């Protein structure tokens, strides 16, 4: 028992430290890329850190109509994000938290986080935030099947329901057999990734137009440390789902946690730049067209499943 603790606790803190240190830079890189494509200077890449620090130093304002749910929302969504990253294997190593079926936990921890963000939004009683919550619910509902189908493909080929096994070096073997299927799954994951992180073409994180926002409108009433937690949680979410993608595309074992972490970090930077480029070259989808886009992702993931099944 003690041996387990002495092994688990350092791994736990090492993982958290890494994630917390790295994740805020990613939105910064996206912003920088967008600025660069548009020919602007743009904010420095460390701006998200500054924002978070600044927000932590501020006080928070609460509307009289809100209850504890409103205050709990940011805390729970941050905690959920921190819990989810424990299941991510860094550098092909085993994740600190791993068991058969952690795949499903991984997906549902995000669900919990989303649920509390939405209830906190509804708690304000504002029409805007209600709209945002309903949109978020619909679109995440549509994105989830694609995520699950994709994970299912991987799990079937890896023969395990654990994230650590799924994203181990075994992926290289799967690539050699089912390259087209994995490409499809990766594409579907990119769509899910953009949806979950409310990026263009699903959502525009930079808009100030409250009537068109999806995710941002839900957190309009949060301020100070609460907003900081929300910003941090969304950066961690970007990290966690990004890590999944990077790992699928680049499943090389690299010695040790720090070397693996470095590879992952570089991969995530690449992903952030990709997101920046996508955001710079595409307009946002009309809200009514988003389900269509997500259905497309679902079909891609489903096609991946069919291909692996047909080849068997």
């Amino acid at each position: 028992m003690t041996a387990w603790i002495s092994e688990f606790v350092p791994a736990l803190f090492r993982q958290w430290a890494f994630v917390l240190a790295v994740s805020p830079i990613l939105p910064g890189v996206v912003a920088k890329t967008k600025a660069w494509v548009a020919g602007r200077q743009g904010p420095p890449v460390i701006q998200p850190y500054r924002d978070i620090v600044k927000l932590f130093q501020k006080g928070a304002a609460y509307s009289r109509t809100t209850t504890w749910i409103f205050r709990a929302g940011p805390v729970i969504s941050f905690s959920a994000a921190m819990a989810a990253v424990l299941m991510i294997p860094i550098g092909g190593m085993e994740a600190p938290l791993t068991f058969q079926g952690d795949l499903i936990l991984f997906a549902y921890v995000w669900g919990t986080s989303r649920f509390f963000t939405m209830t906190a939004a509804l708690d304000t009683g504002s029409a805007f935030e209600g709209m945002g919550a309903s949109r978020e619910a619909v679109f995440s509902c549509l994105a989830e099947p694609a995520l699950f189908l994709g994970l299912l493909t991987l799990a079937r080929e890896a023969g395990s329901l654990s994230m650590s096994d799924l994203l181990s070096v075994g992926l290289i073997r799967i690539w050699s057999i089912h390259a087209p299927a994995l490409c499809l799954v990766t594409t579907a994951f990119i769509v899910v990734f953009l949806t979950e992180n409310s990026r263009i073409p699903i959502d525009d994180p930079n808009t100030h137009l409250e009537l068109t926002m999806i995710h941002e409108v839900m957190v309009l009433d949060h301020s100070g440390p609460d907003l900081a937690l929300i910003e941090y949680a969304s950066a961690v979410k970007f990290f966690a789902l990004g890590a999944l993608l990077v790992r699928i595309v680049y499943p090389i074992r690299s010695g040790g946690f720090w070397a693996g972490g470095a590879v992952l970090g570089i991969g995530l930077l690449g992903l952030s730049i990709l997101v920046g480029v996508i955001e710079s070259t595409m307009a946002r989808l009309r809200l009514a067209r988003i389900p269509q886009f997500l259905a497309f992702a679902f079909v891609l993931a489903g096609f991946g499943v069919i291909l692996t099944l047909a080849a068997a």
Partner: protein
Amino acid sequence: MMSGEYSAILVLVVITNFYILNTSRYIISARAIALQGCLLSLLPLPDAFAGSPQAMFLSAGTLMVKGILMPVILIRAIRSTDEFRVAQPFLGHVASVLLGFVILVAAFWAGAAIPLPTRPHDVLMGAVGLATILTGMMIMVNRRKAVGQVIGFLILENGILILSLRISRGLPFVIEMAILFDVLLAAMIFGGFIQSVHETFSHTDVSRMRKLKG
């Protein structure tokens, strides 16, 4: 050609199908058709490398007709009617994409039942061919505008090419060429017709042509 690339081409064909199902812009559909034509022209290449000059000609002919000429004709017809705008299909886009997925599953199931697989990709090829044929039919039924139906027809035609490659590595050379020529002619006549329909009705919405009944 390596096996992975071959199946990748087929997968891309299916993705172009879905892309066309998903889009409501005819110019883009026409470009996707062009892409599909180019992809199809790659399919006979393994035979061509294996030393079959006819496969080489077939590949070149497909590229020429399906990859370049037909899309050009189609795009010109679309431009001439001045109707690039969205026309809501009878079945919404989400529903048609999901139906396309059902078709795909069914095609994989049925494709496996086609007898005589001889080469490693035959199962996939049969399925993709069938799925393309069915998707083409669905698009023909589902689109309101004349251009949409023509697009469906061209996809259907592409599906048959894939399936003919699956069944017998393509029809005899002369016939394959005659068919290509015929399809090209069909595309031209469709293009001309779309223009006449546009001139006569000042729209090309086929669903609004319902004078003739019973």
